[in-house]
C-alpha cells in the first residue's frame, strides 16, 4: 500500500475530528468574547446535543427533526445554565464564574448519566454508510457532512457577526462592554445570546459526529478539552483561529496515531498546545492583548 494513500486517509480522519474540535472551539471563543470567561461546560453541550438528538430520533425517526430538536434542547439548556448558574452570582469575577462552569459541567454530566444511563447509543449516518473511494483512500458520506456543515456554520456565523445589527452589537460588547452600554446595547442580553449560540454550535458538533463515534454520557469531557486546546491553539476569541486550531489539532492527532504510535494520540495534541503556549501565548491568530 503506498504511503500517499495512507497519508490521505490520516488527513480525512484528522480533518473530520478537527472540524468538530473547531465547532467546540468557536463556542469557547464566542463566550470568551462576551464575558472573558472560559465555559468549561461547553463539552457537555456536545454530549447533550448528541444524546438528545438520539432520543428525538427514537421518538420519531427523522434525522432533520432529530437535528433541530437536539440543537433546540441544548440552546434551552445553555440559556437556563447562564440564567440560573452564572447571572445570580453576587461578585462575578472571571475565576468564580469559570469554577461555576466546571461545576455545571459535572452536574450536567451526572444528570445525563442518570437519564441516559451508562450505555452507548448510536445514530444512523445522514446518508448511508457506503464508503467513497478516492484512489485507495476512503471517505464516508458522514465525513463530508461533518466538513460541509461545519464550513457552512462557520460562514453563517461570520456573516452574522459582520453583517447583522445584533452580530455587530455582540462584537461591540466584546471590544468594550462599557462603551457598548453607553450607546444602548444591553450587555446582559448579549451574554445570554452568546451562551445560546455557543450551546447551539456545540450541539451541532455533537449531532454531526455521533453517527461516527456513538454517544455516551461521558463523551463531552474529552471533546471539550480538545476543543479548548484548539481554541487556545488558534487564539482564543478569534473565529478563524478556532477553526484553524481545530483542524490542525485533528490532523496532528491522526498523523501521530498513524505514523508514530497509537498510544501517543492525546499526548501529541497536548504537546503541540504546550509548544504554542510557550512560543506564542496569544495563539496562532490571536491579537496581542
Amino acid at each position: 500500500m503506498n504511503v500517499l494513500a495512507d497519508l490521505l486517509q490520516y488527513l480525512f480522519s484528522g480533518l473530520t475530528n478537527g472540524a468538530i474540535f473547531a465547532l467546540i472551539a468557536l463556542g469557547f471563543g464566542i463566550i470568551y468574547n462576551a464575558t472573558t470567561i472560559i465555559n468549561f461546560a461547553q463539552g457537555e453541550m456536545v454530549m447533550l446535543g448528541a444524546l438528545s438528538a438520539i432520543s428525538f430520533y427514537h421518538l420519531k425517526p427523522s434525522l432533520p427533526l432529530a437535528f433541530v430538536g437536539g440543537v433546540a434542547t441544548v440552546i434551552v439548556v445553555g440559556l437556563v445554565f447562564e440564567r440560573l448558574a452564572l447571572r445570580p452570582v453576587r461578585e462575578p469575577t472571571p475565576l468564580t464564574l469559570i469554577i461555576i462552569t466546571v461545576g455545571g459541567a459535572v452536574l450536567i454530566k451526572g444528570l445525563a448519566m442518570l437519564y441516559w444511563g451508562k450505555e452507548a447509543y448510536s445514530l444512523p449516518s445522514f446518508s448511508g454508510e457506503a464508503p467513497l473511494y478516492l484512489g485507495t483512500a476512503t471517505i464516508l458520506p458522514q465525513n463530508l457532512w461533518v466538513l460541509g456543515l461545519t464550513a457552512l456554520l462557520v460562514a453563517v456565523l461570520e456573516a452574522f457577526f459582520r453583517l447583522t445589527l445584533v452580530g455587530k452589537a455582540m462584537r461591540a460588547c466584546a471590544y468594550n462592554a462599557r462603551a457598548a452600554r453607553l450607546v444602548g446595547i444591553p450587555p446582559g442580553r448579549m451574554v445570554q445570546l452568546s451562551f445560546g449560540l455557543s450551546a447551539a454550535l456545540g450541539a451541532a458538533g455533537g449531532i454531526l459526529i455521533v453517527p461516527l463515534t456513538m454517544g455516551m454520557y461521558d463523551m463531552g469531557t474529552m471533546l471539550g478539552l480538545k476543543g479548548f486546546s484548539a481554541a487556545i491553539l488558534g487564539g482564543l476569541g478569534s473565529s478563524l483561529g478556532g477553526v484553524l486550531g481545530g483542524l490542525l489539532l485533528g490532523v496532528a492527532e491522526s498523523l501521530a496515531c498513524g505514523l508514530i504510535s497509537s498510544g501517543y494520540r492525546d499526548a501529541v495534541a497536548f504537546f503541540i498546545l504546550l509548544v504554542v503556549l510557550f512560543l506564542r501565548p496569544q495563539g496562532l491568530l490571536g491579537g496581542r492583548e
Partner: protein
Amino acid sequence: MKAKIVSRLFLSVVALSLLIFAGASASAKEPLVIGGVFSVTGTHSYLGDPEKKTLEMMVAESNAKGGLKGQPLKVVIYDDEGDPTKARLQAEKLIQKDKALAIIGPSLTPTSMAILPVTSKAKVPLISCAAGIGITSPAHERQWVFKTAQTDQMAVSRIYQYLQKTGINKVAILTVATGFGISGKEQLNALAPKYGIQLVAQEVFGEKDTDMTPQLTKIRGTAAQAVICWGTGPAPALVAKNMKQLGLTIPLVQSHGAASKKFIELAGEAGDGIIMPAGKLVIYKLLTDTDPQKAVCQEYDKKYQAKYSAPASSFGGYAYDAWRMLTQAVEKVGKDRAKIRGALEGTKNFVGVSGIFNMSPDDHNGLSPEAFVMVKIEKGEFKLLD
C-alpha cells in the same frame, strides 16, 4: 451544660446497644454472613452491578426457602469502585467486623490480587469473579482462592484454534489500553507461537477513543489476514465500523468482551460477519438440549429477567456460579472454613453458567477453553460456528 450533653449521649449509646443486643438475642439463629466485594460504581460498574444484583437475588431466594442448612443468610456487599486499596480495606472489614464465612468477588483482576493476601492469611475462602490468570495460579500458593470467570488465555486459545482451522496465520491485533486489553495483548503474544500464528501488527487504542481509522490504515498496509480486536464498551463496535469505512474486508475477530447483544446493536450493519468467543449464557438459546449448560443458563437468565427486567450478563453469571458453588460446599460440609475450602477444591463436574468446572489442587478455576463457543454475527443475530 456540657456534662449534661455527655451524659445524655452516654445514655443513648447504652440504650442503643441494649436495643441491638435485644435484637440479636430475639432471633434465635444468627444469620450466616456471606461477603461480597464488587466494583458496583465507577468505570467498571457494568461488571460489579450485575454481580451485586445476582448475589442479592440468590440470598433472598435462599432465605425464602429457609436458608442454608436451616440457618438464615445475610449478604454484606461493599463497593470497591474498582480501587484496589478500597477493596483491601473492605475485605478486612468483611473478615474482622462482619465475620464473613466466605467472600465472593472482587470484579477485577487488580482488586482481586490486592485482597487475596488478606483473605488467605485469615483463612477465609475467596471466590473471585475476575479473569486474570494470576489470581488462582500457581494454585499451591493460592490455597484459599478460587475463581469462576474464564481466563483470557482460554478465549485466546479458542480464537487461535479457529484461525488455525481456517488457515489464517498472519494476524494484526488491536487492543484497548486498559487492564483488559493489556492482559489480552500479553496472552495473544504468549500463545501465538503455539498455534503457528505470526502477529504482523500490534496497535493500541484508548478506551474512549472515537476514531480507529489511523490504526486500521496502518494494519491495511500489512500482510494481515485477520484483525483481532480486544476491548469492551463501544470501542470494539467502532473498530467494526471503521473497518467497513476503510473497505478492509479481512475477517474481524472480537474478544469475549464484545460478546453481547449491545455490541450487535451498536455495530449495526458493520457487525455482520464478525467472529468472537462467547460464554454460553449469551447464546444459550442456540445450544442443543443435550448441552448440560443450557438449562443452567436458562434458569439464571429467567430469574434475573423476572427480578430486574434486564437480560442476565456473563459477569453476573460469575457471581451466580460462585454462589452456587459455595452454597453446595456448605450444604455438604457445614460451616467450617477449612472444610469448605476442601470441598471447593474438590468440586467436580459442576455445571455452571460460565462452563463446567473441574477443580483440583492444581487448578482453582477448573474451566477449559471449551467454556467458550465461537460465534459469528449474521444479520444481527449470533450463530454458532462449531
